[in-house]
Every structure is written in C-alpha cells, then in structure tokens.
C-alpha cells in the first residue's frame, strides 16, 4: 500500500508520520510537497500536524488553498483513505471536507500530553482494529483543538455515528461533545486532534496509535488485494 504524506511550509509532524508508515507499519510512503497537483499513484493520503503557514489568519486557512488540496479532495471523492491529524484536521475543516471549525483551547494553553480517548466508532476503515468503546492513550499537542459546530451538525454527526473518537475523562480543550475525531459521511476522511503517529511503539509510551494505521492497511488489502 502506498501512502502520501503531504508537506506544507510549517508542517512538523511529517517525519513522525513517515516513520510510522515506513518503519512501524512497513508500507511504502513518500513526502508530497504542497505545490504538487497529483496524488493518483497513492492509495492513502496523510495530512500531518504542525503549523502550516505559521497558523497565520486561522489554523489551516492558507494551506487549504494550496495546489495539492484539489488532489486531496479528488482522492477523498474517489474513496481513498484521507487522514488529517492535528493541523491536518484543521486543514480538512477549513477545506470543508469535514464539518465544523476549531477555536482556541478553553484554557488558552498549548496542551501537549498523552490523553485517553474512547473509540466511539470502531466500524470505520481507520478503526476496525480497536474494540468498540476501547479506551486508548494517544498524545495531543495543540493550542486550537476546541472543536465547534452548530447543533444541527452535532446532531447529524451523532446520529450517523460520525464521531469516531471522544476524549475520555477530562476534556483537554473544551471541544463540543468531547469530540476528538470525526469522519465524513462516506467514511473515508478522518480528522483527529490526537497524534496516532506519535503512539506507534511502546518506547514512545503507547503503541495504541499503530492500530489505526494497521486498520487502514487491513481494510485496504481486503478491498483491493484479495479481489484482484
């Protein structure tokens, strides 16, 4: 399986993401610079964390108009797995691939620590490796992860099981309904504030994030390799 890690000026979790795929998952991965326009040779697209364009104006607002984003939208339309982590999630929100927006954390602090998450929906191409309601430990590192959406959107997310991860125990940023990660209607675009790529080995304090990448791989193999 071939993964693309999109790199914007200011991305800083791209190397972690690359490492997670290449060394921990053992699959092919390439960096793709934001000026590129084609992702057709890739099977999955990863938008890493960081501070694209210095978080100027709003987090993800400028990256959202990069050349590569049209190709990301196309990959999403084609049903390829698209994962946005942290700033990558913010870019997906700004681009409208996922609903809602991010505000400053309630306590105005940059929060950088492991948090517990509940796997609310383990029936997505990203989460089949988890048990339903499993509690996992994955680190967060963000100043603007306070998820906001209107009531109609929240209802839509809840009724269609589109909230994939919720913060368990304390909510670190004030996000609505303890939302840590949501998926699109079609089920192939996941955005999450916690960093699964930073939890891929016990040496890092947790390997709970690796299951997410393994889930992507397993589901892709079932859909593509077995039938071809």
């Amino acid at each position, binding site marked *: 399986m071939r993964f693309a890690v999109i790199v914007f000026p200011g991305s800083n979790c791209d190397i972690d993401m690359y490492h997670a795929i290449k060394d921990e998952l053992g699959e092919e991965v390439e960096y793709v610079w934001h000026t590129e326009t084609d992702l057709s040779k890739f099977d999955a697209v990863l938008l890493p964390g960081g501070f694209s364009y210095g978080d100027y104006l*709003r987090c993800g607002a400028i990256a959202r108009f990069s050349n590569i984003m049209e190709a990301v939208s196309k990959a999403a339309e084609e049903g390829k797995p698209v994962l946005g982590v942290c700033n990558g999630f913010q870019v997906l929100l700004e681009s409208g691939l996922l609903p809602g*927006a991010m*505000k400053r954390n309630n306590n*105005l602090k940059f929060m950088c620590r492991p948090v517990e998450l509940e796997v609310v929906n383990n029936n997505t191409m990203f989460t089949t490796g988890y048990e339903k309601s499993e509690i996992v430990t994955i680190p967060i590192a963000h100043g603007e992860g306070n998820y*906001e959406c209107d009531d109609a959107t929240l209802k839509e997310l809840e009724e269609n099981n589109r909230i994939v991860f919720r913060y368990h125990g304390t909510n670190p940023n004030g996000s609505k309904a303890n939302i840590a990660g949501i998926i699109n209607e079609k089920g192939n675009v996941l955005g999450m504030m916690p960093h699964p790529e930073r939890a891929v080995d016990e040496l890092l304090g947790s390997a709970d994030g690796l299951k997410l990448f393994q889930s992507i791989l397993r589901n892709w193999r079932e859909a593509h390799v077995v039938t071809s």
Partner: protein
Amino acid sequence: MFKVKVYVTLKESVLDPQGVAVKNSLHSMSYKDVTDVRIGKYLELTLDQNTADVEKTVKEMCDRLLSNPVIEDYRYEIEEVVSQ
C-alpha cells in the same frame, strides 16, 4: 485605489475563550462594569483602482478566506482614495 477595512468577529453564539480571559483580567483590575469582551481581527486591504465590482470582490474574499463562516461573522467598510 480602494482602502478596505474588514472586521472579523466570532459569532454571537460562539463562546470566545480569549475574550473570557481578558474579561476576567479586567475584573481582577477592578473594572467590574465590563460584562463581556469579544476579540476579533481587523484587516486592511488595498485594492487597485481598476478593480471591477469592489464590493463583490471583498465579499467573496471574506467568505472564502478572510473569515470562517462556521464560527465567524464579518463586516467591512470600503473607501475610495483618490491619489493626489
């Protein structure tokens, strides 16, 4: 040319964590009369004299990039500046 002033603010329905912190700070400084603080952004744009339909262009830029319609509102003032 045109000078455009754009004000971007969080929607009324959206809680502003920065505004709350500033309000609390003002209260601790004994400005007890402050009942609310909302923090927004102010942008100044300069548009070329030949810009076709300035208002439409400004509105479009606000909708697409300068504000996030999910959580923010905006308003703008357009002023035509005649160079000497």
